[in-house]
């Protein structure tokens, strides 16, 4: 009688514990696939835009971005989500080079202060930073026998940036020797 009870108890323990043994192998496969896919996407897109005030325009261009100097013009409105509601917070547009803030711009007129410019168009601080990057690229190319300075620059600008500011940035880039502009866009789905 006692042995029968013990057998029943053991059986009940086994039957309860059996469903708890979940096979993680298939889940592991799924996560590995997602990881590989994410790494692939990450490797393809050489530019990442994390600033919440930058909304890129949509274009029919199919050209892929390349890894080069990024000059960013942020927008004057930042989108935030609070209590499941989208709110827009005003902020000062800035010119950044490779995530480094170079120049603040007036949020109403999108004008760079006159004392920060030369000859009407050239933004002094931006030119200095670009010349510094150019020198670095040339030095690295000499040391590594790699590709020298190619004059390419990716312009990442908010879609509402007026041409007034864009022209200043382009003239400054050209003045520093960066004459091949690549405008960042969001590809239109075919």
């Amino acid at each position, binding site marked *: 009688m006692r042995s029968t009870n013990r057998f029943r108890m053991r059986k009940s323990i086994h039957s309860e514990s059996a469903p708890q043994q979940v096979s993680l192998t298939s889940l592991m496969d799924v996560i590995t696939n997602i990881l590989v896919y994410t790494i692939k996407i990450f490797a393809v897109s050489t530019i990442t835009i994390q600033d919440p005030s930058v909304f890129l325009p949509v274009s029919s261009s199919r050209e892929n971005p390349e890894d080069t100097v990024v000059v960013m013009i942020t927008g004057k409105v930042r989108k935030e989500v609070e209590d499941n509601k989208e709110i827009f917070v005003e902020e000062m547009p800035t010119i950044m080079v490779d995530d480094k803030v170079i120049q603040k711009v007036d949020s109403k007129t999108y004008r760079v202060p006159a004392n920060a410019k030369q000859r009407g168009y050239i933004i002094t601080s931006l030119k200095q930073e670009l010349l510094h990057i150019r020198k670095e690229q040339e030095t690295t190319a000499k040391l590594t026998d790699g590709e020298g300075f190619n004059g390419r620059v990716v312009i990442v600008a908010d879609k509402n940036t007026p041409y007034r500011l864009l022209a200043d940035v382009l003239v400054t880039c050209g003045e520093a020797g960066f004459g091949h*502009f690549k405008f960042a*866009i969001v590809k239109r789905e075919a």
Partner: protein
Amino acid sequence: MRRVRARRQSEELGEPEILPMMNIFFMLVMVLMGMSAFLPLGVISTHAPRLASGNSVATGKQGPGLKVMLLKTGINISVKGALLAGDSSPLLPKISFGDRLVYDFEGLKEKLTELKKQYPTETNIMIMSDPDVIYEDIVHTMDASRESVNGEILFPDVAFIPGVIQ
């Protein structure tokens, strides 16, 4: 009894502990997803005007020197320095779209398709703009200059003139 225990131990050793590895993988996925914006990003290549652009000085051939000008009121096109509209008024005035006025990019595509038939070997075009025109409109102008409505290649070498129409 000992044999049973030994068998159990060997069975336990046989199963690899994949849960911590899975945690790491999961965290890696999360970090990578957080770092990358899942937008299909691309670029449009342009360049500052060169001596050989438009009027082909290098080859000695006279090109049409096509220019698209984005004005506050619409779009103008110039060929060989002459405005197609005849005067400074826009060739393609802004059109109403809902409660606002927008540039007529479809009209621009049609005009450029006609010009492509006249100059089939030309690939260069220059874009100038009013200081208040926004970047999005400039990108759409570049799109309209590159491809026709039917997907034919028009003027893919877009030069962006770093100067403003005063």
